[in-house]
């Protein structure tokens, strides 16, 4: 391989190809696109958490300057448009399916959260649309709301959907109850912990946006939108919502500025824009502002849990028992039922060899924004619970937290957990050891006493996490209730001049696919990186694909590219054999050159590419012209990234401010294509984890259901000065379940870090628990209530 090409190959920290266009303002985001005769939509939203709509009078709005049309739930219903769906069905322990309430695109007779969609005004300008929306007269009958998670299942609490008594959508279970009970019966010690996993609001840098269009001549609808999975959006909009048949609907997700899960889902605004475009006969654009994003993007997390851990006298884990109440919000979002169930309960074994686990999850409705997948989706909640209770057990048993983990690690693979997952490879002790070394665990006691001499409280906390990503074997998810398969597709098109277009079903919205995918293709074909173009995000260009979420683009999306490249190589060798009059078995392909083994005959990649398309003298029965191959790759297992994060904090008892003074993350992601991008993913993930642990909290007023944290005045996003300098390390066990040995790195930081931080904070404070986010006020209050106790002891 030539030096230049080797420097761009697998394992090299190649600079991101896409960044020049992004940082010079030359990206093409949905809001950058302007269509001829475009109109603008503005959504009138519910000011009430729960109200009956007695009447809506739109006449004044319709007569307002610049208004093209006003749509309400009645128009949607009259047109027979279907509601928004949840693509994953969860079954309750009594065998009944989850109780899904209707989710209309525009509210029909009831609004169920502040921000719910009441009407859409389409006008010549956004200002016209917004001004007209104020003229819509909605007669609401305000009703009591179910807001607090802790009381939403009470008989007396207001009902969100009549289909779901006690606001309970499902009562799900996983694991073996009898075996778990037996394990607890023989336990020497049981550790109990009540935990809250705080509600988060995603805040991707680019808000959601859409442009709906309808071409009367062809009958084709086009939707440009901020989607992580345009094909899935097209499927849902055609097969379930009924906007248009699939072949008459094109969905384009151009440059997308971050998603973190919130752009997986099919929302009301995008749907209404494409549906109404045919009604008004002009393109309709909607760009959400930040306030709308706070109100209506699907939120994340929001669990209340009770956990019990059974141990024997030596600190061996015997069983884990968990009861969780998971907030689903007012409506089921596209994948919301799967998040607190199959993406959560299946990870409760952590890195540990548990003989028995039993988990019950109640998925409940509240009059709040829908809750769905957010970076990590279920796995941060599971990891938080496991790593918090393990740390608590270490403190209660007096066993060093590293040692307690060591005693319980899974050490042989494959390992079948009691909760579905079959871990394929890992070395948990290796990452723990590396992290202990990196943080200088032995020196902690000295650092703690030095901090105490300055009046500061120093604490250390561990998180030995595992997650399941590379979503996912289609058969596995199908058996668990998914309405889709989770394979991925790829097509490799070699052009006559030898450069290459790769069409992937994955979608890049910040992950750097244009670079990493190109590194894979360039190194495999022996061509420069710049000869490879990654094409994604347009259902008219790319074959059906499943999109990007669940850290799946490397393990699944790139595996599909590998399979397509295998086919390319096979065909290219056949052509080379024909051109060089040799047997196929004698053709060697290396560094972009085909040679006949044992001879000086050779063909360069570009020569072969051109020959594939001139096709002069090809034996037509054996070799078709052209060089283009596709593949669909379905993984055989989830992938299991794992590692150890250790956090050290210093707390100022006067103010309650927690400063992270050291943060070590040692991760095992299997094969790494571009270490610079992987490090960036880890940094971003940890930043979001620090956000959850110390700063971020989506809060609704418990009585009115108003979103209290509806802007950056009150919702605290992490800033650079909230973050320490991270110390990263990597260990490597190759994933046996995909051809590249990759595991996925996109979510690990957000999954692993919160328990490490809270374990450190509680260690510093000498308390059992503190609710996330551990704000200065909460820390100070914990100190006030702890102080008299300490004095009494």
């Amino acid at each position, binding site marked *: 391989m030539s030096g230049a090409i080797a420097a761009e190959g697998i394992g090299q920290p190649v600079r991101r190809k896409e960044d020049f266009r992004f940082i010079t303002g030359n990206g093409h985001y949905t809001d950058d696109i302007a269509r001829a005769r475009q109109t603008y939509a503005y959504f009138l939203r519910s000011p009430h958490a729960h109200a009956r709509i007695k009447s809506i009078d739109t006449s004044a709005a319709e007569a307002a300057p610049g208004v093209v049309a006003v749509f309400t739930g009645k128009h949607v219903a009259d047109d027979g448009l279907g509601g928004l769906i949840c693509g994953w069905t969860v079954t309750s322990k009594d065998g009944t399916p989850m109780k899904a309430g209707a989710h209309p695109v525009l509210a029909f007779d009831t609004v169920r959260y502040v921000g719910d969609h009441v009407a859409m005004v389409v006008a010549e300008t956004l200002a016209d649309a*917004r*001004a007209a929306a104020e003229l819509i007269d909605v007669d609401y009958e305000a009703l009591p709301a179910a807001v607090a998670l802790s009381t939403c299942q009470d008989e007396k609490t207001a009902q969100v959907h009549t289909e779901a008594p006690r606001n309970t959508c499902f009562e799900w279970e996983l694991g073996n109850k009898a075996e778990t009970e037996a394990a607890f019966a023989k336990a020497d010690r049981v550790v109990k912990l009540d935990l809250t996993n705080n509600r988060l609001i995603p805040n991707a840098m680019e808000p959601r946006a859409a442009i709906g269009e309808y071409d009367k001549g062809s009958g084709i609808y086009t939707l440009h939108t901020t989607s992580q999975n345009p094909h899935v959006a097209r499927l849902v909009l055609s097969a379930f919502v009924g906007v248009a048949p699939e072949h008459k609907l094109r969905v384009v997700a151009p440059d997308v500025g971050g998603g973190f899960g919130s752009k997986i889902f099919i929302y009301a605004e995008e749907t209404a824009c494409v549906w109404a475009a045919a009604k008004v006969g002009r393109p309709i654009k909607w760009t959400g502002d930040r*306030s709308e994003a706070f109100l209506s993007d699907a939120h994340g997390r929001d669990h209340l849990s009770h956990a019990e851990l059974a141990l024997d006298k030596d600190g061996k884990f015997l069983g884990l028992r968990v009861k969780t109440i998971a907030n689903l919000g007012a409506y089921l979002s596209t994948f919301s039922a799967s998040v607190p169930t199959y993406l959560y309960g299946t990870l409760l074994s952590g890195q540990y060899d548990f003989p028995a686990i039993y988990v019950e999850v109640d998925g409940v409705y509240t009059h709040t924004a829908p809750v769905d997948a957010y970076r990590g989706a279920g796995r941060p909640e599971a990891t938080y619970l496991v790593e918090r209770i393990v740390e608590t057990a270490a403190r209660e048993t007096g066993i060093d937290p590293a040692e307690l983990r060591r005693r319980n690690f899974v050490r042989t693979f494959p390992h079948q957990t009691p909760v579905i997952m079959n871990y394929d490879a890992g070395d948990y002790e290796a990452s723990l050891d590396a992290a202990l070394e990196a943080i200088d665990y032995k020196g902690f006691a000295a650092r703690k006493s030095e901090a105490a001499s300055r009046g500061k409280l120093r604490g250390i906390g561990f998180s030995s996490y595992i997650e399941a990503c590379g979503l996912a074997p289609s058969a596995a998810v199908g058996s668990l209730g998914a309405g889709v398969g989770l394979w991925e597709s790829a097509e490799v098109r070699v052009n006559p001049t030898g450069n290459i277009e790769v069409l992937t079903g994955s979608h890049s919205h910040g992950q750097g696919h244009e670079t990493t995918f190109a590194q894979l293709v360039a190194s495999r074909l022996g061509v420069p990186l710049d000869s490879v173009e990654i094409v994604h995000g347009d259902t008219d260009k790319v074959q059906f694909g499943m999109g990007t979420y669940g850290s799946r683009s490397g393990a699944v999306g790139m595996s599909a590219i590998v399979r397509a490249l295998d086919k390319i190589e096979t065909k290219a060798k056949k052509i080379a054999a024909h051109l060089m009059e040799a047997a196929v078995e004698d053709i060697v392909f290396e560094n972009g050159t085909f040679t006949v083994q044992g001879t000086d005959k050779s063909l360069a990649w570009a020569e072969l590419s051109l020959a594939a398309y001139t096709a002069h003298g090809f034996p037509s029965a054996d070799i078709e012209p052209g060089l283009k191959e596709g593949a669909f790759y379905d993984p055989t297992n989830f992938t299991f990234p794992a590692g150890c994060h250790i956090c050290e904090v210093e707390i100022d008892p*006067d*103010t*309650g401010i927690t400063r992270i003074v050291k943060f070590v993350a040692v991760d095992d992601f299997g094969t790494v294509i571009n270490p610079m991008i992987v490090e960036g993913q880890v940094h971003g993930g940890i930043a979001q984890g620090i956000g959850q642990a110390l*700063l971020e*909290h989506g*809060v609704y007023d418990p009585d009115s259901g108003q979103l*209290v*944290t509806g802007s*950056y*005045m*009150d*919702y*605290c*996003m992490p800033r650079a000065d909230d973050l320490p300098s991270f110390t990263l390390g990597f260990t490597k066990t190759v994933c046996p379940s995909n051809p590249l040995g990759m595991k996925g790195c996109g979510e690990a930081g957000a999954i692993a870090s919160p328990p490490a931080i809270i374990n450190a904070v509680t260690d510093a404070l000498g308390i059992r628990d503190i609710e996330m986010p551990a*704000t*200065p*006020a909460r820390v*100070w*209050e914990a100190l006030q209530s702890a102080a008299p106790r300490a004095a009494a002891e």
Partner: protein
Amino acid sequence: MYQFNYERPKTLADAEALLGKADDPKILAGGQTLIPTLKQRLAMPSDVIDIGGIKELDFIRAEGDAVMIGAATRHATVATSPDVRKHNPALADLAGWIGDPAVRHMGTLGGSIANNDPAADYPAACLGLDAKIHTTKRLIEADEFFTGMFETALQDGEIIKEVTFPHPEKAAYMKFRNPASRYAMVGVFVSKGPWGVRVAVTGAGQNGVFRVAEMEEALAKSWSPDAVANIKVPAKGINSDLHGSAEYRAHLVTVMAKRAVAAAS
């Protein structure tokens, strides 16, 4: 935003005339509060009179034992002014710690104190330094100027021209920032000068900036952090919200006062 008439007068006299003519005018200085308010359609003025083009309001002058700062002077200008740095470094520090660089390059002294946001920094400096506020109509003592949350002694049609900050012997400002907004959750300005000792608190009070007499008396006897360490501010009248209880904020007043005195020693 709603429609309004926009005017950008060149002189103070023109601005006053425009204010007199309009039905429901608003003065636009740096716009760091007014513009977001307009964008969110929370205000519907008939006229917006932009005083950013009035050169006579943009100056910093050190004269005798005080620094005079024009009302339209940007925070960044105050923060980096050699005169302010030399005579009143605590004031320069406070200005340099307002918002973020974008805010500091647009926001103005006059706009800040006229708005009297209960979490703004400048009111603490004015009250803490016994500042004199000169308007188109009169001179107002800082003690008389801040009358309540978003309320001042300014009358309709009255425009702030400049603020006189006498040089302190010792002064410092310590701010505990709201983790989300980065506004002052509790900001304490302490000073010692010809006026005696002053302790002014912003961010915490339900009625905006206030002085803490007990701390002032203690510091007058002994200028040391220990003098205020055990003086507690009552939680009554202190803000309470999801970022912190009144008790917590009251406690922070003592902590920030102590640290401010230490920094000013």
